[in-house]
């Protein structure tokens, strides 16, 4: 699609105000990119809507004029899902940043789509300290909506599942301009659940913005116990982990559960550091949880094959941060400001294979590696991330990272996992393996929702001409 006409610019300016539209080279440059490895592609416009009505009018315009629209939250998905593949309008949703309502007794919050993770956390801490939401470890500028819509995970996922499981309802604008309420809010003034209605929210979860624009959402909130603690369990064989994780998740004592494997610092290479997070309302409760957790792994300790390590105060403080800042700092570990990872959702039993494969991919591509597995639910699955930092100023570093990521995507699929928030090449790999009837169903849904193909085109499109 070629350059848009001035009339589009004028129309957008009328909708959102001229100060909230840009077609300047500087904005187009920035919004063409994210901090990952995917190729930049410029939009024709960047627009900052301030309300659902403005979004609606933009979509009506875009639908009428067949202009691609790409919704953008924090821009930290890293896999290029917010990079406009076919030009058009990038909708930076972050002006819509109001926290609308907290329902304390039903423990949910309604937010606009541009509310950041950090702002929601800070707001709850100040106004509802007994409640919290599950926060991912992305930087706090990531939006709540963006993370939910890609099935993200975070600090409460071991206890409560994927972040999409915590969704109570959506307000969406369809590509054809209709505004819909999805979930209980479509019938009731309360946004308490998606049940017991047909779950139309599923039309927006995991679709990478190809079915419409989410403008509001309600998510579950959880009790916020006063005390939190973290323990580390160290092993030297990845083969132990499925059993260790199974035992730990069977205790019902944990909030968050992660395993990290890194090649740096050198002294942790080849070791698995299982990080066990607990929360409690009293010292006694915390102590009980510690005991139950330690008891679950006693046989490993007695056989000297695994051990708990005391986490000293400075390190404990950084592990208990929400979000953990060191994860963002890791992006600069190659002194290059670039970082992307393949996060594959896969069964726990594949842990040893995933671990070994990740190390070989890194070795083949002459890169350091970081692998983090976050356990979702009671070991129902895990988000296993193979992370590759790179130096943005060094083309070869970028190419090596791209190669490693491609190999990781393929490896994930080969072992029965599915890349999460998959970048376009990986989407194609997924679609290749997908049940054909399912692919057809996806195609039918997309055509129904977005007859003119304006929503984030180029994603979930297989060979590029539609699924």
């Amino acid at each position, binding site marked *: 699609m070629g350059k848009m006409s001035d009339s589009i610019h004028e129309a957008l300016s009328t909708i959102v105000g001229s100060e909230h539209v840009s077609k300047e080279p500087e*904005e187009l*440059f*920035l919004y063409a990119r994210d901090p990952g490895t995917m190729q930049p592609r410029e939009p024709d416009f960047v627009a900052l809507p301030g309300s659902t009505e403005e979004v609606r009018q933009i979509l009506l315009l875009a639908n009428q004029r067949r202009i691609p629209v790409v919704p953008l939250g924090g821009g930290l998905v890293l896999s290029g899902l917010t990079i406009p593949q076919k030009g058009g309008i990038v909708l930076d949703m972050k002006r819509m940043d109001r926290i609308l309502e907290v329902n304390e007794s039903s423990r949910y919050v309604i937010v606009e789509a541009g509310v*950041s993770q*950090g702002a929601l*956390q*800070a707001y709850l801490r100040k106004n509802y300290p007994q409640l919290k939401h599950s926060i991912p470890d992305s930087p706090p500028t990531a939006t709540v909506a963006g993370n939910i819509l890609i099935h993200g995970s975070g600090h409460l996922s071991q206890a409560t599942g994927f972040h999409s499981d915590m969704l109570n309802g959506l307000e969406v604008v369809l590509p054809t301009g209709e505004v819909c309420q999805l979930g209980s809010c479509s019938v009731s003034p309360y946004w308490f659940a998606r049940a017991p209605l047909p779950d139309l929210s599923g039309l927006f979860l995991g679709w990478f913005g190809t079915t419409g624009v989410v403008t509001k959402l309600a998510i579950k909130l959880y009790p916020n116990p006063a005390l939190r603690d973290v323990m580390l369990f160290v092993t030297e064989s990845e083969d132990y982990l499925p059993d260790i994780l199974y035992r730990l998740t069977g205790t019902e004592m944990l909030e968050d559960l992660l395993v990290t494997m890194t090649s740096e610092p050198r002294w942790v290479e080849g070791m698995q550091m299982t990080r066990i997070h607990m929360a409690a309302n009293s010292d006694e409760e915390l102590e009980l949880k510690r005991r139950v957790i330690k008891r679950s792994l006693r046989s490993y300790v007695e056989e000297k094959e695994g051990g708990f390590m005391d986490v000293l105060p400075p390190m404990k403080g950084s592990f208990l941060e929400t979000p953990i800042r060191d994860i*963002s*700092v890791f992006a600069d570990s190659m002194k290059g400001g670039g970082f992307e990872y393949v996060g594959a959702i896969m069964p726990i039993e594949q842990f040893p294979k995933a671990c070994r494969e990740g190390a070989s991919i890194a070795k083949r591509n002459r890169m350091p590696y970081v692998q983090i597995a976050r356990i979702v639910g009671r070991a129902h699955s895990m988000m296993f991330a193979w992370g590759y930092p790179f130096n*943005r100023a060094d083309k070869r570093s970028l190419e090596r990272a791209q190669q490693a990521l491609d190999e990781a995507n393929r490896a994930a699929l080969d072992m029965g996992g599915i890349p999460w928030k998959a970048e376009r090449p990986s989407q194609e790999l997924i679609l290749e393996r997908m049940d054909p009837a399912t692919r057809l169903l996806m195609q039918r849904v997309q055509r129904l929702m977005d007859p003119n193909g304006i929503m984030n085109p180029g994603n979930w499109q297989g060979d590029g001409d539609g699924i």
Partner: protein
Amino acid sequence: MEMEYEEVVHRCFRCGFCKFTSDYMNFNCPSYLKYRFESYAPGGRMWLLKAWLDGEISASQHLGEIFYSCTSCGNCKENCVMEFRDDLLNIFTAARGELVADGRIPPQARDYFKNLHTYGNPYKKARNTRASWAKGLDVPEYDGQEWLLYIGCVGSFDERGQKMAHSLANLLLSWDVSFGILGEEETCDGNEAQTMGEQGLFQLLATRNKEIFDRRGVRQVIALSPHGYHAFKNEYSSFGIEIHAVHYSQFLASEIEKRRDGLGNLSAKTTYHDPCYLGRHNKIYQEPRHVLSAIPGVVLEEMERSQKEALCCGGGDGNFFTDILGSGVGCPARIRVREAAATGAEILAVACPSCAKMFEDAVKAEANDARLRVMDLSEILLEASGAGL
């Protein structure tokens, strides 16, 4: 194209910690708050700078506006999680220096430099009117007194700034402080010239000041503006200028104990705004509060964002003059004034003439001038003692 700090610029991950306060409650980058495009956030500037250095984008009017909308408030340096965070403001200054060298600066910035060069102030006012703020007061010329009271350009020529200068001088006179002013000979401290990228001009101004200070035997300076204080304290020594500089809030805090009896009374709920060049840049948070707390009747109420979390008034890097950061309901000064009003305060206390000007304009724009007064520390002290205007 080469630039100092070039090897660091590409390391920005655009994670966005720089946009926030440290508890993530609020966006705290004044230009990002106003414009909300990623280009106006520190991370956006880093990426655009890298693109410009690599020749991927050209310098343009818009790029100039993006860089000159930064106020060097320091919030990014405070909150960036990367190891190069301490270089951030220097990088933006260096970028502006490149724009200056390239001739691609916004016209308002060009005017600023031109006026500074020609008139010794950005306002294009005649040098011999520099001391006109002192009219009606018997302010002595500096002639070897204990302190030089240094006013700066905003205090000398801006209407609101002049009121502040007048008030402080009045207070110091009433306290029998041994001080004098340079009067017409005072020349710009150059702090804004430096951060706006005109190193050459800054050097010229600093050298001029050195000559004046040496000739007139200046050893100790009380600075009205935190911008001037910052330059004297942190930059001037590299030009061989060895003076002991304090900000006037520090001076007042050191004197207030012996003057407790004469402070009078002012029953007013007051909130204090930490100016960037006093607070984040120089970590001076307690002295102004100490002054205010000492005044009988004053009840101090902190704003949601205070001390190192304070939201910049939007006046830095010459924006009080160039107005690139602009106005509008989303501009930082108006956001800050709304925050002040939310505390229930009747007085928004300031310690910087740029802040005074920005906030007084914002209060008027918010139509709140009946309920919220913008006053600096000296004005509050004078009013409490019954000697205020």
